């Protein structure tokens, strides 16, 4: 049965929706909401009425990186930020160095070489000594899903090695900062400010624990890094850590020939 307009429950739920109540009355409404499906209907009725007050405010556009952050947290494709002051330079450079020039084909060769090594060479070596899983992350610029921007690998000492695959121009008054986060700790943690076009290494002690699926991203921040300890600028490159399990080739007669693949996760 619906909750009658103007009844005690009707007002109590309105007051709860407004956040007016103390602990005792809040607990009372929580019981109502759990026991009576009509209480939920009443709560949303009031929420709908209060929209009138929200709609009287002047809308404020969120910073572009807010949507990117949401997409990163959910594992969605990251939307390219259209910021004339930054992106045209960056993208123009990426474009000219990839599809627009010989570097694209050189890069394609590098990728093919990596694939060849992963699928052919390493399994052969594994006959002698099966290697540990390879941890790798390919970071891409938002909207540039066919273009690797950086390749991250974690070595046997658990250090992170970062290799740039494209050249970008960064304004003199800006820095590139590296962040990481995962589902358990969605708040990005800074791994430091890096020169944008040079290979770099993050030691294991600074890197901390890494799990499969962990996200690494580079954002454009003010010179010296984010002043807030959290990303404030657009995402330049983003990617997830994956684990490649490389199994040894079976070479002798009677060996099972099926388990010779490298399995990405």
């Amino acid at each position: 049965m619906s909750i009658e307009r103007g009844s005690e429950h009707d007002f109590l739920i309105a007051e709860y929706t407004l956040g007016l109540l103390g602990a005792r009355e809040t607990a009372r409404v929580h019981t109502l909401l759990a026991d009576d499906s009509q209480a939920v209907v009443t709560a949303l009725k009031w929420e709908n009425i209060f929209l009138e007050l929200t709609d009287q405010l002047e809308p404020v556009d969120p910073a572009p990186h807010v949507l990117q952050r949401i997409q990163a947290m959910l594992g969605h494709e990251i939307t390219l930020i259209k910021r004339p002051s930054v992106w045209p330079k960056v993208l123009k450079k990426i474009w000219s160095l990839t599809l627009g020039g010989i570097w694209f084909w050189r890069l394609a060769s590098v990728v093919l070489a990596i694939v060849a090594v992963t699928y052919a060479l390493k399994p052969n070596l594994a006959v002698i000594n099966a290697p540990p899983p390879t941890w790798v992350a390919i970071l891409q610029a938002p909207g540039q899903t066919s273009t690797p921007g950086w390749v991250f690998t974690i070595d046997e000492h658990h250090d992170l090695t970062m290799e740039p695959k494209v050249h970008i121009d960064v304004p003199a008054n800006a820095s590139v900062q590296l962040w990481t986060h995962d589902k358990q700790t969605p708040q990005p943690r800074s791994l430091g400010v890096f020169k944008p076009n040079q290979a770099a290494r993050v030691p294991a002690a600074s890197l901390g624990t890494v799990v499969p699926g962990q996200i690494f991203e580079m954002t454009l921040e003010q010179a010296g890094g984010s002043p807030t300890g959290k990303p404030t600028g657009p995402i330049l490159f983003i990617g997830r850590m994956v684990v490649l399990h490389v199994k040894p080739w079976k070479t002798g007669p009677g060996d099972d020939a099926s388990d010779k693949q490298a399995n990405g996760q």
Partner: protein
Amino acid sequence: MAVPPFDYEATLHACAQGDQDLFQALYRQEAPRMLALCMKMLTQREAAEDAVRDTFVLIWKNAGNYDRATGTARAWVYSILRYRVLNQIRRTGRPTNAVDDTLAAQHHTDGVSCLAVHVQNLAHLDDSQRLPLLMAFYCGQTLEQIAERLVMPVDEIRARLRTGLDAMQGQAA
């Protein structure tokens, strides 16, 4: 040709099916209004953007739980947002804003800074009903805090609020 109104219910349903494009459409449609409300309640842009971000993550994860029989999809979205913001205010308190306080003084809103530019809202209510409602909605204040601020008994504030709520409901009907 008239632009059709945004279909919140269909959009939430699409989000539940994994449609990232419509999720983005919802963000573009509603995030600016959500941020405006969060900035009013929390007074700080960074905290407000964090609240909007976290709300959209929850919207995506819980879109499948929305049942249009319970109410409008837009109200459902704001119930998530306001619940988070109110919890944050309870946890960390609400920072004051000097600029808002100055405006409040100019508009004679008894130093209730978050109401500085909203004295014209709820014009169909009289001041005694309007002020507690606006203090609750825009400032996230509890009954006791409002009573203390307006130097009135809690029961008196509650009676005024309920008169105001009844009038709002009548206006919306």
